[in-house]
């Protein structure tokens, strides 16, 4: 029985002519050496590539903290027009980190969305939901108008014309110690349901909320 197999050459032993190799061997010293050198090269390359890549991608995954910013007393804000307030969105970078919010008191006759402690004052972001240009409130028209591509929003910030894909973003507001404070940004769909903040140009109606998922970097409202 043993003799019958003796002269059969293994089909896996390709380098049988090399010194030191033997019949039936599948991993010769040369193949082992080749594999180890390639592995070491790969480890060495990964040792500098992966940290550098992680360094560059880090901001995607680190959540940005936020602070409640006082913007005035409740009597500053009527419910039939908006007051522009300058906010610091990113601290420490001067003008670049500033943004404008349009604030008014909630008017239950027009603000039909669900009321809670965070929307007693309606604070709309001035960021156009087409591509992010700054909109301005035009009191005579009771509209928000974007200078870049003609986006128009009604008094509640809901799009009524032009290319924007959803209503203006909003900020959480609350009243603490007699002051109106403004918190993190959130996005709304056309029924003013709240979503975590999305960038302009990303619709939230229908399939939009799945095509443009929540990011890991945006501020969240603490549970309190």
């Amino acid at each position, binding site marked *: 029985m043993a003799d019958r197999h003796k002269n059969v050459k293994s089909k896996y032993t390709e380098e049988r002519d090399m010194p030191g190799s033997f019949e039936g061997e599948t991993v010769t010293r040369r193949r082992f050496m080749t594999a180890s050198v390639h592995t070491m090269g790969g480890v060495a390359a990964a040792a500098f590539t992966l940290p550098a890549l992680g360094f560059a*991608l880090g*901001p995607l995954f680190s959540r940005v903290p936020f602070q409640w910013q006082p913007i005035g007393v409740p009597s500053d804000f009527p419910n039939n027009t908006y007051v522009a307030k300058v906010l610091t969105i*990113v601290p420490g970078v001067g003008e*670049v*980190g500033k943004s404008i919010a349009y604030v008014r008191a909630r008017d239950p006759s027009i603000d039909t969305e669900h009321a809670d402690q965070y929307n007693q004052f309606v604070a709309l972001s001035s960021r156009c939901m087409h*591509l*992010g240009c700054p909109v301005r409130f035009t009191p005579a028209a009771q509209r928000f108008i974007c200078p*870049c591509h003609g986006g128009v929003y009604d008094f509640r910030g809901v799009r009524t014309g032009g290319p924007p894909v959803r209503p203006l973003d909003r900020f959480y507001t609350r009243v603490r110690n007699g002051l109106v404070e403004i918190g993190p940004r959130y996005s709304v769909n056309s029924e003013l349901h709240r979503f975590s903040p999305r960038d302009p140009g990303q619709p939230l109606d229908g399939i939009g909320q799945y095509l443009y998922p929540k*990011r890991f970097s*945006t501020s969240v409202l603490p549970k309190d």
Partner: protein
Amino acid sequence: MPRLPAPPLPKILQPKPQRPGSGNGKLAPTDAAAEAGLTVVDWIDERTSLSGGVRWMLFRKVPRGVNWFYTLGSATMFAFLSQAVTGVFLAMYYRPDATGGAYESMRYITDQAFLGQLVRGMHKWGASVMVILVFLHMARVFFFGAYKYPRELTWIIGVVLLILTIAMGFTGYLLPFDQRAYWATIVGVNINGTGPLVGPYLSDFLRAGPEFGATTLSRFYAIHMLLIPGLIAALIGAHLYLVTKLGISAPPWLRVEPDSDPQSELQPERAEV
């Protein structure tokens, strides 16, 4: 090693051989000085064989009928070189500081630095020139059918170079950090963000966070002056290697002429390296 054939110098520039019987076999000092350049080139060439590569690249056969349209590729490359040189020197004065230093340093370059306005202008207008030349070059290759077999890979690398050139335009546009630069970048990043599924994360990557922040400018600056130029230079090398290796294509209006001598290499479609 075998001596390379002499370059095709005009007769007046070739060294005169000594008359038989004169001299002692050594070069006179003046002749040695006159040939110093050649000696240095020979010394380097004996150790590197570089001249073979240069000859391979420059003294190659080209098809009959090549014309000025064939210079658009070189023109694009020189536009890139101009951008690289002026960019390096602009970087000596520029500060990627979002709190106002960037704009101030641009003002210094434009208003005060000697020739600053010129060098900045070359970089700014050269950028537009490069984009235009890239498209003209691409149109030439398309309309001449020069992307066809075996030059598909050259075309693909060219398309990647086009994308990188556009990315250079996008990242460079922010650097002056005036109102136009800021808002154009806001809009551009948000256009990026409209890509389904990956868009939101891509714009987070570009901005280094959910909002335009302290490191967005330096991130754009690093991409603009380190990452993409390196890629472009490497890919231009690959593009040129393929151009030389495959030869350039004949203009489409040339027809194959029946040749009495089948061994002739002068048929335009046979032109090869």
